[in-house]
């Protein structure tokens, strides 16, 4: 089994934060959203999702609240904090810089 390596570690944080920019969501919803938006390329496993959510909460990037979801089920909703927004912007810029750099190298290698 090929491991989703360390890249995923940082990337998952980024994906979660990005997903939360629209509205507060619960864990299952986050996983679903990422899966759908990525055309089922990215599958977020629970084993990685919940530790990541707890870590982000501990760092103060997101905050959690219990609330009612559709058909009156209680769920823990995560939302982005101010610090989290700033962090996301920074990380997203980093990521774009990195991926475009990688893209450049790959293109150059192809030609």
């Amino acid at each position, binding site marked *: 089994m090929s491991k989703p390596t360390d890249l995923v570690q940082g990337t998952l944080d980024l994906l979660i934060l990005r997903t939360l920019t629209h509205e507060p969501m*619960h*864990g*299952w919803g986050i996983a*679903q959203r990422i899966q759908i938006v990525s055309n089922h390329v990215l599958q977020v*496993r*629970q*084993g990685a999702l*919940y*530790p990541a959510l*707890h*870590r982000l*909460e*501990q*760092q*103060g990037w997101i*905050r959690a609240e*219990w609330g009612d979801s559709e058909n009156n*089920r*209680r*769920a*823990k909703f995560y939302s982005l*904090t*101010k*610090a989290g927004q700033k962090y996301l912007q920074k990380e997203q810029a980093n990521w774009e810089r990195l991926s475009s750099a990688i893209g450049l190298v790959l293109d150059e290698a192809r030609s």
Partner: protein
Amino acid sequence: MRWFAKISLRMRSLFHRRAADDELDAELRSHLERQIAANISAGMSEAEARRVAMREFGGVEQLKEECREMRKINWIQDLAQDIRYGLRMLRKSPGFTAIAILTLALGIGANTAIFTILNSAALRLLPVPHADQLVTAGQNIRSANGNMHRNVHDDGSFVSYSEYRAYAKENRVFSGLLAYSAFTETTLGGNKPQPIMGTLTSCNYFNVLEIRPELGRFFADSDCAAPGESAVVVLSDSAWRGTFAGDPAIVGKPVMLNRTSFRVVGVAPPGFEGTVTVASSFWAPLTMVKAFRPADDFLGDDDLSWLAMIGRLKPGVSSQQAEANLSVVASGLNSLQAGRITTITLGRATLLAMPSLRTPILIIGGLIMAAVGLVLMLACANIANLLLARAAGRRKEIAVRLTVGASRGRLIRQLLTESLLLALLGGAAGALASFWSVAAIFRFALAHLPKDPELAFALHLNSDFHTWSYAFALSVLTACLFGLAPALRASRADLTLAMKEDGAHSQTGTISAGRLRNSLVGSQVAVCMLLLLASGLLLHGLYRAQTIDPGFQMKNTEAVVFDLSSAGYTPQRAAAFQRQLHDRLAALPGVDEVAQATCIPLGNSHDLTGFSTPDKSKSYEMEYNHVSANFFRVLGIPVLQGRGFTDAEARSGAHLAILSQSTARRFFPGQNPIGQMLHGGGEPNSRVADWQVVGVVADAQVATLGDSRKLYLYEPAGPGQQQDLKVMVHSAAADPAIAKEIDSVTAGLDPELSVTIAPLTEVLEFWREPARVVSVLSVILGTIALLLASIGIYGMVSYGVSRRVREIGIRMALGADNRDVMWLVVRQAMFPVLTGALVGMVLCAAVSTIFSAILFGVSPLDPGSFISMPLLLLTVALLASYIPARRAMRVDPMVALRYE
């Protein structure tokens, strides 16, 4: 804001753990339910939907643990849990716990005790207000052309009086710079003159140190205005309470110091005993130095280093700035003398700031620390061994914990917590014991060192932040030392195997565990061998010192020691005194010879200078002595060649020399030494001259006990040595009253002179006592080491036997007899023992020369010790392995084969 949120989250997970856990549970459950619902709506049956969701979800408990891990406060909870668990484990095996704690208490306690002594001398700042602003300042003088002459008194980093005045006046960095000359030994006059130790100081001494007088006042600047004018003195609290019985009206009274009347102006507060390790009983202005040391011109001689300096930094000045500024002053001094290069060194103001004091004490202290540290390592090895054996018994427990989701790191942490608990308990016990006993032990050791009545130590041997942190750090270090290897090993269990087997006799992992165990025992034996050999050598040295024949006659001879030069005698008066003393002593009933010498043989002071052949082809640094004509007769040293000095030569101070046999051989091999010339020192003030050899005497251990071949030269005691001569009184038969009679003679000549009278045989004690203390210490350490090592060997063998019961049973069933089994067990045990012993012997051979000063001629590779001690160790090792091996012989093959 973010911080606040973070902290409140952590607090919540710490104190509302249950609620946080419930929430996590609910969150994960709701996720699962959603997934199931999603699966159902995708067309699965409810049962299948649940199954798929569960499978996707994975290990719930592991996931929860991971989430908890993210809360970051886990370690606090884990720690609390580990401590509870560890305490329970320790309570469960009280025998193991008690042995481990006791061993550790011993090891850590001994280490802490030694450290407490070193700390109070070398690390702790002076006991004065704001001591962190104080720095010691010393200078080091070199010369570009290599011929700078400098007279050094006590320490090479000292400065002359004129240099001190330059530094004090021209520096811009100190609010005050003081100078002092410690170790000023002098005579306190009175009904019975007694030696007293004090310090000469600049008059700002107490101001710079910011000390307030207990009584009266300290020095004013006017006290140092004119040399020799202001005979005032400050007494220490203990001198005031002791010698002067706490006289409340002491201020203003006169005391006689070295025949000069000083007026007491004040008493220092209790607890302040000067700025060096040796306590001062009095302080006098350094401009009064002539009263204490009349022979030299301390104030006028610009080339005489005799003052130490301490400065108080102005607020905001760093010690680098101070050093730079003093260097500027020093470069001004450099310009006064061609080729002079001065370097400034600043240091922390401790009692051990002087290099000449610090170096030897730190070396000796370091050696003792090393020895005690080795014993602590032995203790660690033993506890590691015990832990390994315990870990083997706990394999199953550990495997279970690994299986249900504990991470390896978590397990190691838990095992280490147990070790840490042991070490901290042991360390606390040891540290408490050492803080209580170190002062008593220190006093005991001092009482057994050569006595010097005026010598008291200014050390305050109490615990402080340094000592507590040292004990704590040492405990943690020990815990890692003995706990890490067993914890790493134990947590590497192979789950399936460990779970399947019954845990009693598995062979898996025992090979590397056995190797670890063997190397532990091997290193124990090596350390033990090292300590045993050292104590063997030292004991042999002590025996030699007790039984040695120094090569000269000591019986019925009293050494009469006094210092006329510092008592203010001129050479003329000294000569008259010596003549009268000689005549009156010779007239005492029973006395048959009165000899004179500047150095008492094997005494605690000696003269050293260089001598060379006229063509400079051979040049040696050597001890020499000025002696009267009958010196050789009184000491029974035979003249082998040529002749001794005549009385007339001794009186005239003729330039003649007598060599010891070895010295003659070194200078003039294969030639007749009589009539040859030697060029070298010996005159007062180190003036060099030519000396004609007139005789050769037998070698004797007059310089160093145990070494008769040390180079030694005798010159006749002439008019130039009258101030420095001591007297040896020989009586025909033992006379217990002779000391008293000599005392009344000297008191009759000069009641103010402080005189020590002791049998010549007593000088040997000066050499024996340090040997005795070191030997006792090394024997104690060696015995503890042997005990610990034999426990280690015993443990290793009995564990090995218990592991191999079945194998032994099979061997016996196949016809092996008791001897074979015994051989099998003992052979395996002896491999690490022999290896360790060999390593220990090599180590000891490599370092044993450091003891040579107290071995008294016993070779550092003394075959006696290097044979007997290994034999002793091997015997004990065989015994320690024999007892468990006997158990192996009693194995019943039938029982053993069923043993499961």
